[in-house]
């Protein structure tokens, strides 16, 4: 019985925990642009292709155009050129080296960006080559410490001495545990690697502006169309056609690059798979512990039932004598053992609520456990099943009693 209580409560708690982790991961993945985000990056061609490498124009804005026209399975596309600049505010404050990125408005959709204040870059900014910028939280905070995002809109940021108007500020991106640690007044754990760094340190300017202000001078022979891109990010319209979409991208690029494999597709599949498999591992080990306690609980129930049967042999004799069939006795014992397990299961549900509260107190910065009705029902059903299984042997023992022997027994 105690085993059933423990089994059910740990099963529910495990499911709530892994569910919490999963939801946290899901939000995290969405904030990073999700699985739909695929990045095309220039790459050294393989040794076989090296001789033909100069046949390919490389990754250019033309690729973006042809992908937009031909790859029907991708919904958004944004080229990207980067340029390291010194970023400073006009009030002669401190400056810092930042990687500015020239992009198209689709970039905001592809990366699933939010806004703390202001607006994203729009097509008009691109057409005009406007000197405007959307900056990340860290950048804003470093240039204008303590200033609310809304007040930063309209201020001037100097990128390599060129004034740009800040038109948008991105929200702070961080992982759930960091948010919660910050709310509790603790310092976030130091990380080797911050997945949101690129977003928080973003300095985003129109693609055309980037070209005219920073890149054309360096390569006068370049037109905007033939400029080598640093990356091309695309968003796949429907994940069901993920593979087909990758295929489309490849065939379009192979054509324009004349078969030279001087680019690479970076997807998040492997990375997200790793995250998911670690969630699965957590679930598996928690499930294993619960299963073991439920088995122990089942054996406990079996012992209770066996003891109760040997005390009640006369009762079964009497029931058989007045016309109970073996299967009636069998069913009676099964129902009784399932009632015991149900009771244990319900106590376990109560215990799991306490257990989850304790878990929350022990590690307040972890993902919040998410309790679902489904997991409760599943665990109680599991307990019932263990009651059913452990009742089988005692029930068959009781059902096969000989009425006369049973009546004589005392």
């Amino acid at each position, binding site marked *: 019985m105690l085993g059933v209580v423990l089994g059910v409560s740990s099963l529910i708690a495990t499911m709530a925990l892994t569910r919490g982790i999963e939801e946290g991961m899901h939000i995290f993945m969405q904030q990073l642009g999700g699985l739909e985000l695929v990045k095309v990056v220039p790459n050294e061609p393989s040794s076989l292709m090296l001789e033909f490498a100069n046949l390919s124009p490389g990754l250019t804005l033309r690729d973006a155009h042809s992908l937009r026209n031909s790859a029907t399975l991708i919904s958004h596309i944004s080229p990207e050129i980067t340029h390291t600049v010194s970023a400073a505010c006009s009030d002669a404050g401190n400056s810092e080296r930042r990687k500015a990125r020239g992009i198209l408005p689709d970039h905001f959709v592809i990366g699933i960006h939010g806004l703390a204040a202001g607006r994203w870059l729009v097509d008009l900014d691109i057409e005009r080559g406007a000197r405007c910028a959307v900056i990340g939280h860290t950048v804003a905070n470093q240039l204008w410490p303590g200033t609310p995002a809304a007040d930063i809109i309209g201020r001037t940021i100097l990128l390599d001495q060129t004034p740009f108007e800040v038109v948008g500020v991105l929200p702070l991106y961080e992982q759930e545990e960091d948010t919660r640690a910050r709310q509790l007044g603790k310092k976030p754990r130091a990380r080797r690697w911050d997945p949101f760094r690129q977003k928080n340190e973003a300095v985003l300017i129109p693609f055309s502006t980037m070209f005219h202000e920073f890149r054309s001078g360096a390569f006068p022979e370049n037109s905007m169309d033939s400029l080598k891109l640093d990356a091309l990010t695309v968003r796949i319209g429907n994940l069901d056609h993920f593979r087909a979409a990758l295929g489309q991208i490849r065939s379009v690029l192979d054509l324009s690059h004349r078969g030279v494999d001087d680019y690479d597709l970076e997807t998040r599949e492997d990375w997200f798979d790793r995250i998911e498999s670690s969630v699965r591992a957590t679930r598996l080990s928690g499930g294993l512990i619960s299963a073991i306690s439920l088995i122990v609980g089942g054996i406990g129930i079996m012992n209770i039932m066996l003891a109760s049967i040997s005390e009640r042999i*006369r*009762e079964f*004799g*009497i*029931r*058989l*004598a*007045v*016309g*109970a*069939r*073996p*299967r*009636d006795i069998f069913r009676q014992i099964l129902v009784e053992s399932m009632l015991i397990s149900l009771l244990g299961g319900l106590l376990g549900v109560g215990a799991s609520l306490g257990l989850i509260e304790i878990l929350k107190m022990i590690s307040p910065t972890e993902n919040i456990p998410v309790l679902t009705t489904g997991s409760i029902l599943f665990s109680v059903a599991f307990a019932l099943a263990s009651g059913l299984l452990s009742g089988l042997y005692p029930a068959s023992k009781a059902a096969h009693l*000989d*009425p*006369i022997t049973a*009546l004589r027994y005392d």
Partner: protein
Amino acid sequence: MSILEFEGVRKTYRVGEQEIHALAGIDLRIEEGEFVAIIGPSGSGKSTLMHLLGCLDTPTEGRMVVCGTDLSRATPDTLARMRNREIGFVFQSFNLLPQLDVVANIGLPLVYSGVPRRDQRARAEEAARRVGLGDRLANRPPQLSGGQCQRVAIARALVNNPRIVFGDEPTGNLDSATGRNILTIFKELHAAGKTIILVTHDPAIAAEAPRVIELCDGRIVKEAKA
């Protein structure tokens, strides 16, 4: 056709190497509506015979027909059905369930014959009134006297309206006055048309039965019909 028919019925128990012939060839016919007393010394096979008649057991050898059904090789389910519908059995030691009240004890056979729950209670109460226990319905067996317990057992035997009622020394655990009351109930049942078969040690009871069968060492040694 006889309600009970035994032909060459034997019951042999094995205890280690030894074979005990509890019944060593019984031929017996009992007609519907008879009142039969079975007597004999201790160990003569009376209870064994009653268990076979009462469908609690099957014979080792021979043919046994109860209420027109051949039960010589019957399955446990068929026997259970016979016990439930055609037969009422009253034991010397009452065999009531102490945790159930009088109504539930009396209604127990109905649980296994698919009678709806509300009818169970009504029929159990009716059977209780028939044996004069209408005012003790909510009591449990430990709160009742021996005579009252045996009335509960009789009411339970009657609740499914069986054709035959068996009593294995039903008065054996009772004082003689109470025993006579119980016997009166059996005589009333006989008058109402039931077939009654009683095992008894009491010569006074045997004297009131129209037919007496005497057993010794697993055989019928004497039969008297009034």
